[in-house]
């Protein structure tokens, strides 16, 4: 497990330097610095209100930091909106904003990026190619319950949806994946689907920022764990060097009066 980042460039994809974010009087993030590198999964953990989601939204371009510098591929960048982040290969994967219930799996997979036939922009779908491609990706992912890519996405479980969304983002060339609690409200088996998709993304050299309450899910898949508390990074650990219990104590020190 020590050599997880084989064959991956050490290039930092996104660097956050001294990020401060305020909502009015409230300082949500205070001087946070974080580097996302290719082939690495960072587990971002912390209590509610520690600023995890805000940090993710800054990288996704939904929020702009009050102060501090964001560097993408070494270059200082202002991420003005979600479209700009996405154009740079930063892809947030949301639980409810990824998959359309009524479309079949392959139509979902290629939505907005359909493979067409012919050169005249007639938009004729190369359905056979897309079905096959989607089938191959899903098989690689080990989603064995899926019998046909023609089935409507509403028949997928929550974990399968997330896995499909992650796989799609990887397939279409995302460099940084942002996941906010992708395993929330999933069964263990379903969470397994998502974690597997995350591992596959890492193997392809992506950087993954992964927020989760459930340390049991974070530890097996993360290379590095960053603990946020009241908007500050309080510890940063290699996942292989810490146990779940130790980590739990870092996030929520046992209250003395209980």
């Amino acid at each position: 497990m020590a050599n997880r980042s084989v064959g991956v460039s050490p290039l930092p994809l996104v660097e956050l330097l001294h990020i401060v974010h305020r909502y009015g009087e409230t300082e949500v993030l205070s001087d946070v610095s974080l580097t996302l590198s290719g082939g690495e999964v960072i587990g971002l953990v912390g209590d509610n209100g520690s600023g995890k989601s805000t940090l993710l939204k800054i990288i996704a371009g939904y929020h702009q930091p009050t102060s501090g510098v964001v560097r993408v591929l070494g270059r200082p960048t202002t991420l003005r909106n979600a479209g700009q982040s996405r154009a740079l290969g930063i892809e947030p994967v949301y639980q409810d904003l990824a998959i359309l219930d009524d479309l079949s799996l392959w139509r979902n997979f290629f939505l907005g990026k359909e493979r067409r036939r012919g050169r005249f922009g007639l938009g004729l779908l190369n359905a056979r190619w897309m079905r096959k491609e989607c089938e191959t990706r899903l098989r690689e992912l080990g989603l064995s319950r899926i019998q046909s890519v023609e089935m409507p996405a509403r028949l997928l479980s929550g974990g399968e949806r997330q896995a499909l969304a992650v796989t799609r983002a990887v397939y279409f060339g995302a460099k940084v994946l942002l996941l906010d609690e992708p395993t929330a409200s999933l069964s263990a088996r379903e969470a397994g689907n998502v974690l597997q998709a995350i591992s596959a993304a890492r193997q392809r050299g992506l950087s993954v920022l992964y927020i989760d309450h459930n340390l049991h899910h974070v530890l097996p898949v993360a290379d590095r764990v960053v603990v946020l508390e009241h908007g500050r990074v309080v510890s940063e650990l290699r996942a292989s060097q810490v146990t779940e219990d130790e980590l739990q104590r870092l996030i929520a020190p046992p209250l003395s009066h209980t």
Partner: protein
Amino acid sequence: MAIRRLVLRQAELGPTLGLALAVAVFSLLSPHFFDPQSLTAITTGASEVGIVAVAVSLLMIAGELDLSVGAVYAFIPVLWVILFRYDGLLPIVALAIALAGAALVGLVSGLTTVRFSVPSIIVTLGMFFALEGLNNLLIGGGDLVVSDRDWLLDVFGQRLGSTPFFAALLWLLVITFLGWFLLTRTAYGNWTQAAGGRLGVARAMGVPVGPVKVSLFVLTAVLAGFAGCLQTAYLRSVTAAQGQDLALLAITASVVGGTSIYGGSGSVIGAVLGALLLSVLQVGLIVVGAPGTFYVTFIGVFLVVVVIVNSRLTARWRTGRSA
């Protein structure tokens, strides 16, 4: 596997079964159901509503409604006939201009809906009244008679050989095929479904939701106008009242044919089968002796029952995930 396919085809399954049942019942009740006059009435009625339902179902799948198609269905042929009868244009040239007018109507409805984020049911209701006023202005309560001879009028309105069928039926088949192809075989069809699914998802995936919706409004108005011209060539006249119930009938046909009123899913073929079913019910009821105008009462009840049954079945299917 077979069940899965059946479920996937569910949109067309309902109207197909309904159609089979209705034909069986009416042909048992009356020996006249298969008379040439009945067949003519069924197919011309189905063509009138069906062609419009192709477009209306696509628009509904994209999450929008168009209540103005009935007024367009009268307004465009009125424009057409005026242009070639009184302004001396060739019918084909007049048709091109009239359909361009239809496209403009759709463009206005579409842009207003998308730009101002007004529900399309309101925008097209406004358009309906606006066009109705224009119709009254142009021909009032009278009608325009088309006595001209022209190949275009034949292509639109003539009887197909010695069959009981008329040209509109062929047009219906062609337009149904094109609509089905557009929805299931092109990227545009994918985007249509996405636009009516969840807006956030469609946008996040880079689907040009606005242009898709606007172009569907244009398509709907053009097809409604075109169907009106077919009807005019068949009847050899047009009145301002032509197509009065058409918007509601086309929506009914779409819903009966499995298109979701909330958007996101549906079937062009289902909508056309729905239109055929409505026409069979209308003619069938007359053939078995019901008063000619009574059938709408029946269709009203039928529509609500179909939707209740459909939503029950869908709910059961959705919870039965593990199958």
